[in-house]
């Protein structure tokens, strides 16, 4: 198991897993970056979007990627609504308030899933479920699609945040909403949009994940924990950092699984997380800065 072929598979599958992780994390990263809010409802959004894809697939036979055309805009609206009705009222309060409020929203989301779909496990039947592409090792097309999104997501988000007015405004509101107001930016409207975009990104990720995993109402909770680790590793503030954090975890877990034990995967990623934070308090980006 120490030959170069194994190493090649570790790298390929590690990077692909990193892509999955990155896709999961963008929504959370954006909302944190713009609002300094750790969105504890993120996992519920992933989960509900995956269920939505499941429902559209079983009812109308829609492919999840097609279903996302419906799901993503609706999620944007839901995100805006959630912000305007609830989050807006605690966002400037004590930090724990928004945390708990969104935790509550997550619970409600989970309960909704239990009521509609029960606690049973569901999965989407896709014709290309088992289709693979040969890259030296057989690589599932579903994971390639997600990886593509992860890369495109990084580039698009970076461009959005740095090169568009709305994106810059989001970053400004993140750091000082009062100053943003004085510069003629409506902090409320921009935050609502950011929350909407974050929710939509999370929903899209949920749709993608529905192609890989069995869905149940608890499905988001475990993923959520991992997404936190990723955005923190990524320095909490940078989109490139998210990708770097995700790839690091993906590679580390795959290597741990192959060269160590399968049960070590999570352990290794948590130890790595603590190790990096302790030596580099700003997360991965601080490797590139001085």
């Amino acid at each position: 198991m120490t030959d170069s072929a194994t190493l090649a598979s570790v790298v390929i599958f590690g990077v692909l897993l990193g892509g999955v992780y990155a896709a999961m994390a963008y929504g959370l990263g954006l909302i944190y970056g713009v609002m300094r809010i750790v969105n504890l409802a993120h996992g519920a959004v992933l989960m509900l979007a995956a269920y939505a894809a499941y429902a559209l697939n079983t009812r109308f036979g829609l492919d999840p990627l097609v279903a996302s055309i419906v799901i993503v805009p609706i999620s944007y609206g839901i995100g805006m609504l959630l912000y305007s009705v609830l989050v807006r009222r605690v966002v400037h309060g004590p930090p724990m308030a928004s945390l708990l409020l969104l935790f509550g929203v997550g619970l409600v989301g989970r309960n909704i899933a239990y009521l509609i779909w029960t606690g049973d496990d569901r999965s989407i039947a896709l014709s290309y479920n088992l289709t693979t592409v040969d890259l030296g090792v057989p690589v599932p097309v579903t994971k390639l699609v997600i990886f593509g999104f992860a890369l495109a997501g990084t580039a698009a988000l970076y461009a959005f945040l740095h090169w568009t007015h709305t994106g810059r405004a989001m970053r400004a509101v993140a750091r000082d909403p009062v100053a943003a107001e004085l510069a003629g930016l409506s902090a409320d409207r921009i935050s609502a949009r950011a929350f909407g975009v974050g929710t939509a990104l999370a929903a899209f990720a949920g749709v993608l994940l529905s192609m890989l995993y069995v869905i149940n109402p608890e499905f988001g909770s475990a993923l959520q924990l991992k997404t936190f680790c990723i955005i923190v590793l990524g320095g909490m503030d940078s989109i490139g950092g998210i990708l770097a954090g995700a790839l690091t975890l993906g590679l580390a877990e795959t290597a741990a699984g192959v060269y160590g034990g399968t049960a070590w995967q999570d352990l290794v990623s948590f130890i790595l997380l603590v190790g990096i934070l302790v030596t580099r308090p700003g997360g991965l980006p601080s490797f590139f800065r001085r």
Partner: protein
Amino acid sequence: MMLSVRDLAVAYGPIRALNGVSFDLEARTSALLAGANGSGKSTLLRAISGLAAIGGGDIHFEGRSLRGLAAHQIASLGIAHVPEGRRIWPTLTVREHLQLAGNHVPTARRRALVDDIVGLFPRLKERWTQDAARLSGGEQQMVAIGRGLAADPKLLLIDELSLGLAPVVVKQLFAALDHINGQGVALLIVEQALHAALAHARYGYVLERGTLVVHGTPDQLRASDAVRKAYLSI
């Protein structure tokens, strides 16, 4: 009248920061606001720009009441406020500060404004793509003022103009503000160094514990005993 403030009262909970303040500002004027610490200068600016809720009385800008308007709405009417404590956006670059503030300004005008600002603070050009968090205190103050100017306002409010700026910069700044004022922007500036400031202002107000106690032209202020004692003693 461009700005007219009538019986303005503002309170922070039980603390009354302003008590029945009334005054008018003409278009294109340049006014100075002075007063001891805690006298309510910042509060007055905050009330005008919408950061502090108007408790009593009213403020009209170009005939329109500002009561109940959000700060960003007031900003888009043409009032820019350079707040106390700079309030720069730490993770945005110098350039992005100016871009954001000047987003609504037509491109040609925006370019000219940015050129003006950079001419005024050459230091900013040197730090053009640096995150504002890593600027020195004075550099941050330059960014804050630059951001106010970039919005191309009709009325510019500056709180603590010279705070933390080296004398050489303060001198340039006063000269620049004269220039800006000359182009038709009305100024309302809070400044403690009255000596220098009075030389550049057309009118001055002095606040004490939330009420206007003295106002007049620079000469009248210089002649006032109260002002001499508190502000011009050195």
